[in-house]
């Protein structure tokens, strides 16, 4: 089966810099096998996510979607890509436009991808907001009227309203309190199940990774040091860096 997204021997170096931010990274995202990118700040997790989203282009190596490269000039293909791959960001306070109503925010992908008009988008928006567990009047209100957890639900609604195949999420729950975190993790798990959504998640929270992703890749300073099934990587780590990450997780007293 062709992987949905694929990175092959990818390296990225910023202009003017001498060192690569990520180097020699190969990853595949197959449908139904959610992937976690794990590592500490500066390891290159977000850089990989940007590459997968087509927001940056690699210095060398290739990024492939459905088996073929991406070219920003190919409008039809980019539109197909954007429809298939959507994203959720870490900070629910800065990722929603404060001056637009939630209904317009969530309808944005439908309208910019040319899938719907204002009139035909409205029922889809309402259904999606209901699906992520928000009250019916949400569409007419503004982001500031909602709590952090509710805002992250709005961001998830925006990302899933066009029924993408892949959801890229950059630390989607780390800004949330623990009780809210559990609920949003549950929501993402349900969406995976119901809509056959494949998740690619950047996180430093290993328990969230273990709850949501079948596969895990561990990044240290721009290199992948270990990747495989999450149970294998987190349960029986072979690389000392992975082991150190797991040992550092604070645990509740028994």
């Amino acid at each position, binding site marked *: 089966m062709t992987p949905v997204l694929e990175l092959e021997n990818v390296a990225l170096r910023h202009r003017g810099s001498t060192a690569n931010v990520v180097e020699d990274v190969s990853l595949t995202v197959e449908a139904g096998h959610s992937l976690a990118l794990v590592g500490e*700040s500066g390891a290159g997790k977000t850089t990989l996510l940007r590459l997968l989203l087509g927001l940056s282009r690699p210095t060398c190596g290739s990024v492939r979607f459905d088996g073929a490269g991406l070219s920003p000039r190919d409008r039809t293909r980019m539109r197909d890509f954007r429809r298939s791959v959507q994203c959720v960001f870490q900070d629910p306070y800065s990722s929603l436009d404060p001056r637009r109503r939630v209904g317009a925010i969530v309808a944005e992908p439908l309208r910019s991808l040319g899938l719907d008009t204002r009139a035909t988008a409205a029922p889809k928006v309402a259904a999606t907001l209901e699906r992520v567990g928000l009250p019916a009047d949400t569409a007419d209100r503004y982001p500031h009227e909602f709590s952090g957890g509710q805002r992250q639900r709005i961001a998830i609604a925006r990302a899933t309203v066009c029924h993408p195949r892949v959801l890229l999420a950059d630390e989607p729950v780390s800004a949330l*309190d623990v*009780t809210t975190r559990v609920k949003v993790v549950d929501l993402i798990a349900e969406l995976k199940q119901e809509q056959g959504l494949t998740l690619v998640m950047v996180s430093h929270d290993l*328990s969230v990774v*273990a*709850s949501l992703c079948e596969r895990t890749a561990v990044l240290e300073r721009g290199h992948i040091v270990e990747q495989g099934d999450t149970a294998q990587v987190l349960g*029986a780590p072979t690389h000392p860096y992975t082991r150190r990450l797991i040992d*550092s997780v*604070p645990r*509740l007293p028994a």
Partner: protein
Amino acid sequence: MTLLDVRGLTVRTADGRTLVDDLSLTVDSGERLGLIGESGSGKSLTTLAILGLLPDGMTATGSVDLAGTQIVGATEKRLAAVRGRDAAVVFQEPLTALDPLMRVGRQIAEPLARRTCLKGAALREAVRGALTQVRLPEPERIARAFPHEISGGQRQRVALAMALACAPRLLIADEPTTALDVSVQAEMLDLIDSLVRERKMSVLFVSHDLAVVARVTDRALVMKDGRAVEEGAVHDLVRLPREEYTKALVASARRLESALDLRSAR
């Protein structure tokens, strides 16, 4: 001996909303208390009220007795004598807690000079000592650096060195590791634990994370919507929470943690 005695602390905004409601807590000399709560529970405001640092427009009523000084209603002059000597604080975000335009060495030198009256080479040596003691490598280089030139973990160590510079009797740590990576967090918690033990300091440790609090303190107070919900030994709170809210907190933390366990068991 009681070092910090908070009785009936209430914090209100100018428009009359109550953000901390009739809170009482005590910290004895050498004792460590954890303050647990989610965003909006009033835990950070409580720490600010203890230091007399409430933002403009908020008023505190009740009593905060810190090493014999009544903080509520005290003059700035009175408070200046208490801060640093009786209690010092490490905030959550080291990037905003440090002055971006001042070299790290000078930022530590300021409280040190105030307490010890050292000058010149002796003061520089003391700064070096303060940086070494929070286990920063290459103290000379760090002292010359600006905050943006060092990593988040190093910045938080600098903030801790500043707080410890005046040898406070009470260290207040407000989510000191929330902005840090998990392995850096583990090192920071160990560091706080050992420094506090060596100096027999008291600690008020604020966090939303039960597991983190359990690493540092033995006793904890759970807060919700400005009120104390439950207080007790951390082990008891985790094992046999009495209140619904504490139960929900523990259950959430356990749920996430169990995901890790299931995987490792296979």
